[in-house]
């Protein structure tokens, strides 16, 4: 269902089944989803950074980014944090439960444009979820990119997502730098905020470095400033932003940030297109 596809009903919801639910951390679960009965689109494909509208009948819809794909099973992953009515209803469905989905929607991370560049991925908390498919694709096409670095932090060590993936990414050539806001027993790593991790990167080739950032909005702002302070131009910084997306296709007006309709023009936006609006309180 790409934007260039012939006329489709963007409101049509397809039934999908939860085939696996893996707890990640307190209140955060990764769901593996698949079309019910193979009756949907077997060729389901999305681009890293895009989102789906997940629907629990009676509870409503929510926009959730894809956090990975499942090629063998023709399914995909969504990492969901318990937040409101819909996420709680989804958590009660459990494995085998059926819910609805429409998508994928939105602008992805510009991975093709980043070919030949160094890539710095910066994530805070659950903000790693929309970046994970990008990490996977960059790893799979390792030779097309320069230096790769992941700067990731969470409030606590147990809040760090996808802990089994770090070694895989390091093997694929990623420099993985972690930090937490508050340590817990057993944590021997860094304590501090994510933007400080830029200090771990030496000898940046700023002219050909691309930065992808996702996390709480305040973290995005400070991480972007840290990148700018090191000389990376704003046109090479991309951020994934969150507002209440309801229609997913730019016709309900909910997810506006200044001139941006984030479901349509985002969620991934070039930083110099968003910076001016992010700095206005209550916009």
């Amino acid at each position, binding site marked *: 269902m790409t934007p260039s596809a012939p006329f489709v009903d963007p409101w049509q919801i*397809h039934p999908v089944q939860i085939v696996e639910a893996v707890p990640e951390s307190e209140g955060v679960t990764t769901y593996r989803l698949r079309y019910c009965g193979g009756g949907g689109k077997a060729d389901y494909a999305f681009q890293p950074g895009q989102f789906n509208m997940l629907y629990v*009948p009676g509870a409503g819809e929510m926009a959730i980014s894809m956090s990975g794909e499942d090629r063998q099973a023709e399914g995909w992953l969504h990492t969901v944090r318990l*937040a409101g009515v819909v996420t709680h209803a989804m958590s009660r469905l459990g494995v085998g439960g*059926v819910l*609805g989905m429409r998508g994928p929607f939105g602008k992805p991370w510009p991975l093709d444009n980043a070919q030949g560049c160094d890539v710095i991925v910066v994530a805070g908390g659950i903000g790693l979820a929309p970046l994970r498919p990008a990490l996977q694709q960059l790893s799979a096409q390792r030779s097309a990119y320069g230096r790769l670095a992941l700067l990731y932090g969470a409030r606590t060590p147990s809040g760090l997502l996808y802990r089994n993936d770090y070694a895989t990414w390091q093997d694929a050539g990623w420099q993985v730098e972690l930090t937490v806001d508050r340590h817990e027993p057993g944590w021997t790593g860094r304590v501090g905020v994510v933007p400080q991790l830029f200090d771990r990167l030496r000898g940046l080739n700023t002219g050909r470095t691309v930065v992808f950032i996702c996390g709480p909005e305040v973290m995005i702002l400070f991480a972007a400033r840290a990148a700018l302070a090191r000389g990376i131009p704003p046109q090479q910084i991309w951020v994934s932003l*969150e507002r*209440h997306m309801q229609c997913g296709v730019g016709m309900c*007006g909910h997810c506006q940030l200044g*001139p941006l309709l984030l479901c349509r023009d985002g969620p991934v936006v070039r930083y110099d297109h968003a910076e001016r609006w992010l700095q206005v309180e*209550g916009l």
Partner: protein
Amino acid sequence: MVDQATADEQYLAKADFQVLLDLLAGEGYEVIGPTLGEGAIVYGPLRSVADLPRGWTDEQEAGHYRLVRRNDEAWFGFVVGPQSWKQYLFPPRTRLLTAKCEHGTWKMQPAEEPVPKYAFLGVRACELAALDVQDRVFMHSAFPDPHYVQRRQQALVIAVNCTQAAPTCFCTSMATGPRCRQGFDLALTELAEGFVLEIGSPRGRELAARLPLAPASEQQCRDAADARAQAEQQITRHLATAGLRELLLSNLNHPHWDEVAARCLSCANCTMVCPTCFCSSVEEVSDLLGEQIARERVWDSCFNPQFSYVHGGLVRHNIRSRYRQWLTHKLATWHDQFGTSGCVGCGRCISWCPVGIDLTQEVAGFRAAADRALFDRRPGAGEHAASVSGQGRGPSGLSASRPFLQQPRGEAGRPLPDEAPELGQSDAPGSESPRSTEGR
């Protein structure tokens, strides 16, 4: 501007007008047009010419709308009421989908509702422009809304040129009227005994061929042009659009927003009567067992606090931020999003605001403040600026008793060097659109 009559113009006598209504009904159209109701001129089904608000007009001002008897029997001798055609193409409540639980699994189907085949009669020039604005939102998109598209594609549009204007009208500022120039199948100009008719589409031509028309006489064409010119001459309200996008977007923290917020009730009336406002929310409508569910789209408004809810709270948690969202979206960021202003100059939001907030006045306020700021920045201009303010007249001629003409407070009123409003330069809608460099 001289309104030249074209050779294409025909004449339809009022005595024959019922033929048009019957012809449309015979073609399966549901004819919708102006009629008296709820103490206003509203849109509703038209079966007979007797349903038209013959001999009535509307008296409008900021926060004011009254029906008044005319001293003639004109059929279309009024401007626009609280309703617009959007309620037919983008209904206040639309069923999008039904979900039904069968044997433990969910069956989800598009709502199968009959698509009405409308003939809109009495569409004004500003409303033609509003249809075009909503076409851009719902139809000219990567994901068109099927509910809008189906209704829109089979709707027939019969426009009626305004022959008078209300004090709230400012279509001339928005370059949308008062003359109907495009977007109609047929367009009428009312004379005492009949209508001068223009054809705007092949469908309109087919329809016209079946009407008892006569070629319009030179005198009839002249009278029609005079009637249209009268509407244009009566327009007094003005919204200066040059540089408007940048003016508003470079003053997002201006103290004038607080001043408007103190008057605004955040009641959402302006968004309900606006013919282009398109914000909506989807509701879950469930039976008691939770086994049959309908998803229904309802009109929403950026003035409703919950509209900006994101988990954890509201983004626009005060009236200041909500009014700012509405005005900047309507007049500025709409250009970025849809390549046009969201305002067509119909004046509905002015008439139907319970406290009479007038967006043209608010914009004039920002403009005056920006002019002042530029004036203040000139070397040695400080004392002069103070005396201008003290004399009670700002550069735009507004009373200085309005707070926005006071010295801008702190950071807020000072345009940043790269954001300074380019006063006097031509308006280039969306010229700084983030998307313009990216394409879609």
